């Protein structure tokens, strides 16, 4: 076990897997950096620091700087995957799904089905997402609900360094397309990471803590916020089950339903506007499949139905906070 950041867990996993599997190639803007400049290509390692040293080690055929052309980046990943490789494409911001959605949604996600189950498209798209850095409306979004809705994709959101390694390794060894979400505020989060081979199976939620009084279902940055809320509540003798989904597609329905069957109280925390969200999805799952266990109306803690604002005070008001989560838990406990 080594202690490292999520950033380093991702970088080291890329190093290890690219060494192991010569079919892996990496594509993205500035994943090398310095190409075509006096400074020269020098593996600045992407603006997020998750590709340092790869170019030096694996060379220009496997680590490829691209122009600002996200459709072509994702489309190239699609084609490389059909051609038998394992491309990893980086979207510098998940918001750039806007300029590349077709290749994700109508191409990568649908190939296998449209082609009668006879093809594989193991492309891994890395998407840097989330609010918290005041990057405003076009650089802060949590795009996972949109992609979770799309049959054919797997959607993965590590919240710890160990899961970053385990889930990325799993993505790179699996045979389906994976949308790998990296929260920009979590890169610096440190934690223990298992040495050697470490795969985290998809569709297996992480029970962050067990409390028994209420169930908090969440993912990404909101796991930590939910823990903070749970700490506060614990001080008052209220115990929460906190479930980190790890992957939203496939979804660990069992973990959610089991917990709600025990607690009868559901709070879903989702860094996203409310409509047709993951929060709504989880709520609907519980309402349809664990209805009789519910002792109170579920609470959804999301952002408002608005774009994400720039100013610190506004962004803070937009993002679900530990305080709001805590209040929601108290409401589900007070009701019913």
């Amino acid at each position, binding site marked *: 076990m080594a202690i490292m950041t999520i950033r380093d867990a991702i970088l080291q996993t890329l190093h290890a897997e690219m060494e192991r599997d010569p079919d892996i190639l990496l594509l993205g803007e500035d994943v090398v950096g310095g190409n075509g400049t006096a400074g020269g290509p020098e593996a600045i390692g992407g603006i997020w620091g998750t590709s340092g040293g790869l170019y030096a080690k694996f060379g220009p055929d496997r680590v490829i700087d691209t122009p600002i052309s996200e459709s072509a980046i994702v489309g*190239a990943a699609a084609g490389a995957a059909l051609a038998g490789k394992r491309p990893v494409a980086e979207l510098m911001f998940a918001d750039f799904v806007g300029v590349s959605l077709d290749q994700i949604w109508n191409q990568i996600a649908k190939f296998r089905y449209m082609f009668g189950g006879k093809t594989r498209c193991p492309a891994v798209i890395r998407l840097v997402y989330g609010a918290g850095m005041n990057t405003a409306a076009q650089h802060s979004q949590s795009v996972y609900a949109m992609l979770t809705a799309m049959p054919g994709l797997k959607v993965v959101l590590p919240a710890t360094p160990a899961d970053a390694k385990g889930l990325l390794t799993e993505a790179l060894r699996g045979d389906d397309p994976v949308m790998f979400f990296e929260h920009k505020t979590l890169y610096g989060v440190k934690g223990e990471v298992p040495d050697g081979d470490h795969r985290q199976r998809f569709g297996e939620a992480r029970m962050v803590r067990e409390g028994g009084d209420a169930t908090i279902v969440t993912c990404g940055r909101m796991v930590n916020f939910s823990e903070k809320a749970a700490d506060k509540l614990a001080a008052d003798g209220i115990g929460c089950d906190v479930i980190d989904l790890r992957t939203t597609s496939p979804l660990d329905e069992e973990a959610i339903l089991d917990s709600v069957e025990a607690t009868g109280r559901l709070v879903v925390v989702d860094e996203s506007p409310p409509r047709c969200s993951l929060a709504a999805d989880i709520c609907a799952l519980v309402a349809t499949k664990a209805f009789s266990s519910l002792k109170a109306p579920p609470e959804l803690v999301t952002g408002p139905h608005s774009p994400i604002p720039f100013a610190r005070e506004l962004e803070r008001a937009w993002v679900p906070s530990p305080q709001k989560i805590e209040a929601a838990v108290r409401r589900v406990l007070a009701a019913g």
Partner: protein
Amino acid sequence: MQLSREELVGAYRRMATIRQFEERLHEEIKTGEIAGFTHLYAGQEAVAVGICDQLSVEDMIVSTHRGHGHCIAKGCDVKAMMQEIFGRAGGTCKGRGGSMHIADLSVGMLGANGIVGGGAPQAVGAALAARLDGKGRVAIAFSGDGACNQGTTFEAMNMAVVTKAPAIFVFENNHYSEHTGDAYAVGTARDIASRAEAFGMKAWRANGCDYFDTYETMRELLDHVRAGNGPAAIELDTERFFGHFEGDPQRYRGKGELDRIREERDCLKAFRAKVAEAKLLDPADLDAVDAEVAALIEAAVVEARAAPAPDPATVADDVYVDYY
């Protein structure tokens, strides 16, 4: 022309197969048995065959919504294709894809595509994959004169140049995108090829209604790309014999246009004339090929019509390799 007798007969057979496949579909669609959109490739056979005849099975192509010709030229099974278009369980894609989504990776056909411009970036990725293997394989994107205006196509050309990928952009200019003329929709000082040149790749032009011109020009292009010179483009002046989709009233055509192009721009007629003139093949040989092909197509239709439909219970299968 260095083609052997056998190669010539093969080329003719493939072109005739496409032609008869499409002519027959044109009839079958009238019966109402075939569902969805069907875009026929007839008229453009010399392009698909003139190009794919020079590819190995390891070379890869990505196709368009008008993909039957590319599929047949690259070696997809004609009977399975017919079943697919009929929506049968035994189709190339088990009836899940239909006319617009035929793929067979085992012959390097990476997929038809219902999204205009969807394929071009994929060819760049396939080309980058090919380069990694170092076996000199190439990847080809077929695009129409309409698709050449989609942002993805431009991005793909630029990215291919930047990454020096062995990708080839084939622009089949049949002069229409649906009901709009290339004279309107393609903004350019000269032609589509010149836009590719402006991206920094070498581009060729050929008569896409002439197998031999297409073949020869493409040979030069392939030599260039296989020699490691990065991507290249070719624009082919060609004709579509039917409507955009089956059912199109084609009011955009000039008076007598269809008759004229069938008379003057038929690649099969031109092929026959050339090989006869050069005394390379006997018309009777080609008649025999026509008959063979007719039998194949007839059998394909008969089998497709009789083949079982997909089982509705399988509707949600084949989405993932595994989903846990």
